[in-house]
């Protein structure tokens, strides 16, 4: 069957777009599994670079730090954003747009500035030295805004009258949350957690200013640049990319199937059997 010109042009555009997005990633992926990592065409397959990465204790410390920052920031941001969304939808009334705007404004502040201002403020007024705690707190600031947007899109579809029903049938507010609200909104919370985790895990600027010499994966990678691109960096980039891809696909699958089997479905999607 011959391709029509319009369809061919469409497919071509899609192909070019994806190449644009993923060629660098694929290049690094090849390089990290090849002995000739500077120009892996054709690649001479090898796990050397990976082995070097995993024997380098700097990267291991950095990975541990990044994981701690990622998980702690994501947990805190998700919890706060969840509460903020519930407050916005249930109790904010007519001022909700104002509150929402103030909640998502941190999205538009450059991360470098966020890092510097957090460092100065913490040092001057809170007596907090740059450390993991203040790095987590600063990361929560911008993770919170993303998490809020993700949770809000999910909770927008939630029918709050289900909470009324639960309470009329004898559930206390806390019981209502755990029996009815949470089981129906958890895909949104998980999505927010994953995105917040990835953001905090990958963050260079904020963490860098607040941690100084304590390495995270992005700051170790950035530091390594000064001595030339080493093969470990290829391996590191590939590992991080793989983890991120895995998490995103997990989220995608959960949002899709989770919504269909657990989430509340609006009237129009309900089918009579």
């Amino acid at each position, binding site marked *: 069957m011959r391709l029509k010109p319009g369809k061919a042009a469409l497919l071509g555009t899609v192909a070019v777009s994806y190449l644009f997005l993923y060629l660098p990633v694929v290049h690094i992926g090849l390089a990290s599994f090849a002995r000739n990592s500077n120009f892996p065409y054709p690649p001479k397959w090898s796990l050397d670079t990976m082995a070097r990465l995993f024997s380098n204790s700097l990267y291991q410390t950095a990975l541990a730090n990044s994981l701690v920052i990622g998980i702690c920031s994501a947990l805190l941001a998700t919890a706060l954003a969840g509460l903020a969304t519930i407050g916005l939808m249930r109790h904010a009334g007519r001022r909700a747009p104002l509150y929402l705007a103030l909640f998502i404004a941190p999205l538009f502040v450059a991360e470098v500035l966020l890092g510097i201002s957090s460092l100065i403020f913490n040092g001057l007024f809170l007596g907090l030295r740059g450390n993991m705690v203040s790095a987590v707190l600063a990361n929560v600031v911008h993770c919170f805004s993303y998490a809020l947007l993700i949770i809000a899109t999910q909770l927008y579809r939630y029918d709050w009258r289900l909470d009324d029903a639960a309470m009329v049938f004898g559930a206390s507010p806390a019981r209502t949350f755990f029996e009815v609200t949470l089981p*129906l909104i958890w895909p949104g919370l998980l999505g927010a957690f994953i995105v917040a985790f990835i953001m905090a895990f990958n963050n260079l600027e904020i963490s860098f200013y607040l941690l100084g010499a304590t390495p995270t994966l992005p700051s170790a990678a950035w530091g390594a640049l000064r001595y030339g691109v080493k093969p470990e960096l290829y391996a590191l980039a590939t590992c991080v990319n793989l983890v991120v891809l895995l998490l995103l696909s997990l989220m995608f699958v959960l949002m899709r199937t989770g919504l269909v089997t657990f989430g509340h*479905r609006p009237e129009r999607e309900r089918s009579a059997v």
Partner: protein
Amino acid sequence: MAYIHLDGVSKQYGSVWAVDRADMAIGKQEFVSLLGPSGSGKTTLLRIIAGLERPTQGRVLIDGEDVTELPPHRRGVAMVFQEFLLFPHRTVYENLAFPLRMLKLPKGEIEARVEWAVGILALRGLEKRYPNQLSGGQQQRVALGRGLVGRPKVLLLDEPLANLDRELRQEMEVEIRKHQTDLGIPFIYVTHNQEEALSMSDRIAVVRGGRIEDFASRTAIYDHPRTAFIAQFVGRSNRFTGTALISQGKTALCDHGVRIESAARPDIADGKRIAAYVKNEKIQLKPAAEMPADAANTLTATIRYVLLRGAYAEYVLGWTGGEIIVSRPRSEAAFAQGAEVACFWNEADIDLFPMTEDGR
């Protein structure tokens, strides 16, 4: 002593009184309907009884206890919602068991009561289904079952049949009234549908603009409407307007040459604008030739259309003053489209009300 008391209950939203000084006393075995157009405040009143809204003023008493300050989960009430609001992540069984689990009943008791609800509501075989796998009627029965399993002190129903088609609605009306009678608990039923209110209730409260316009037995509401609004809203009526003429112990009005004459109404002053309502089924028909044309409470008209409603026929008639609608049982002689007929009614079937300035 009434079982449920509303004592001067009012609810203000901004500058609007959604409910305005509602007083009601409801007995333990009573089926009461709150009937009113949308936005009249009937649902707000129901939600105040449930505890989902706090009244701005007034008290709510259930079984002698002042529950005004109690949150919904401590009131021992149950509710059936218009949108069903079944928990979508729970099966039919789990939805029915929910109120029982909240009551912390032992497992055996929960099973027995869910089994009972499944039995009386014909839900057998559907226990493992999720709400989105049920038809509208089945969802409604689960919602009703969830309301009944916990043996609440009162069951509140908020337009529960509004989302069902007509046939199913009539079936459910019978079923709801049956369960209320069997269980002997009060039902408070919110509806804008007068047929539902009339078919099931013991008493009807007509709600309008946040106020209870009348609270009386369904026959009183239907047969002796206390206000023009009730006459218009309950049952289907024909309306005649004119100026009050008081003579020979009668109060009468003249509309397009038709004299409508009712028993004396001392509360209506001579010369005041009044409206008369005569229910569709209270008007009788005869061939025009058999009737003296100038008698009171009689008018001649031409049949424009005949709508067949099964047990009765509905005649749409044209007369000099416009159109009237008359319902007659099919057992009576039928009239054909285009026929000239005389319409007449009894003095006692006229409801007279003074008209307000806006002409209503």
